[in-house]
């Protein structure tokens, strides 16, 4: 690995966990259920970056490409389901705040 690509590699290796942690932090601190989904998406983007970098530095981009595309497709499905959940929750409670929604004990 040449010096430039080593630096590039470090950039990727730092960016991906940072995105991941930002996502977890967002989910943990927000009270807005749409913001939670956005946090989830940010986490996923971190993984996408890491996967792409892993493929590039292993010299196997052709293996990683279908993995990333599959991942994006699966992620869209999850987003659709969560959108359905959010729509139904808003219809019932007329609010996006977890404090107004949270009635379950335990």
């Amino acid at each position, binding site marked *: 690995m040449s010096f430039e690509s080593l630096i590039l590699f470090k950039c990727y290796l730092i960016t*991906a966990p940072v995105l*991941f942690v930002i*996502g*977890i932090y967002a*989910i943990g601190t927000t009270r807005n*259920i749409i913001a*939670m989904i956005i946090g*989830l998406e940010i*986490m*996923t983007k*971190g*993984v996408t970056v*890491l*996967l792409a*970098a*892993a*493929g590039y*530095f*292993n010299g*196997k981009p052709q*293996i*990683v490409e279908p*993995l990333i595309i*599959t*991942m994006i497709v*699966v992620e869209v*499905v*999850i987003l659709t*389901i*969560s959108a359905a*959940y*959010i729509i*139904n*929750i808003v219809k*019932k409670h007329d609010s996006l705040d977890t404090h107004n*929604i*949270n*009635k*379950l004990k*335990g």
Partner: protein
Amino acid sequence: MTISLIFVPIILVILLNIPRLSGKAAYYAALAFFAWQFLSVFFPFLGSQQIADLISKFFNLNVYADGISKIMIISAAITAFVSLITSKVFAKRDSRLFALSNLMLLAAAGINGLVFARDLFTMYVFIEVIAVASYILIAIDKKDGALEGGFKYLIISSVATVMMLFSAALFFLVAGSTGFAEISLAVKDFGANPLVSAATMLFITALLIKGGIIPFHAWLSGAYAEAPAGVSVFLGGIITKTTGIFTLIRFFYSVVGFSENIKTVLLIAGSLSIVIGALIAVTQKDFKRVLAYSSISQVGYIVLALGAGTALGIGAALFHVFNHAVFKSLLFVNSASVEKETGRLDIDSFGGLGYKMPITSGTAAIAFLSAAGIPPFSGFWSKLLIILALWSANCKGFAVLAVLASLFTMAYFLNLQKKVFFGELNAQLEDVREAPLALTLPAMFLCALTIGAGLLFPYVLRLLIFPAVGIV
């Protein structure tokens, strides 16, 4: 057998939707598939191989059946079969039955794919298939609690999945592939590499979240208790066990192997789950919540058995997964019977239901005894195997804990049984009748399985469990 069990349900779903058939047709098609799935494990000549040959001309999947996947396939088939029958009792409209049957077929395809997968990324895809189907199943009635419990489950479980994917990407970085064989080679070569340890820890954490082990159990009771009655059977019996626990077993068995640190983590997480899960279960007032926390406690036993780190431990864990699938499905079917006949699940409002619902009460008692580890029911044997595995792996303290914690299991189940089925008949419950045949028949079937697997234990051990983990 492998590919056909993944593709036949998907093809069935397509055929049922184009053109759209009636709910009854979908129901019987799904039941027939689950029965076929169960039988194809024991009788390979039932056509699964021929269909697999046909499909593999078009698709090339990295899948492979071994002993551990067989046990999971059997448990999944039993649970799905029973839970679909239970769901039908509660499905008022034809379209609801249609949706339930299709989603359960999809979830079954996901489970079969997951247990046959030989690649971390394939595992991720199938876990998401199961997860998507179960998110919809939980909230299918659009009830308040179900929406909230389901959303909690969606967020926490998706975070776990992304963690798992992150660790798969790290493994790719190290190994240059996500296949089990390549990763386990890379782990052998660069075991001390911080990337490998980070990936392993992330993966284990993700799976403990998915399995509902104690520090990460917040989502589990909401999802189990608020889901519709039939779906609870499916969720509690098999879904979290495959996505969480089976994947954990597979990860250790086929990919990374056991190290001392991993064993310690598993032993501590398992014993915490057993004790705290049981203690919370004693305090719960809702029938299904008691069962949910008992699930956490029983999953603790499975993780504890894995912590032994030996082949016997893995075998014991698998056997307990099977037993748990049977007796927990049975208990959820019983809770469905109670809910159907009385319309509520608050355990303090019952009393003496056993006089009115003798079959439900009797089968529930047998399930309790099996869960608490009383011979000759099958739960006794798996707990015995767990304790033996721990003792022989020199984790004697944890073996003693496993024995003593059975008392906790007795405590919350006796509490439940006494408040719901035994004692004086509550005056309000005078005109309650036994649940319909569609609920008592599955209960009796599962009950027969518990007793049968317990009495025929030597055969189960020699034909399924020991070959699966390679003990001769």
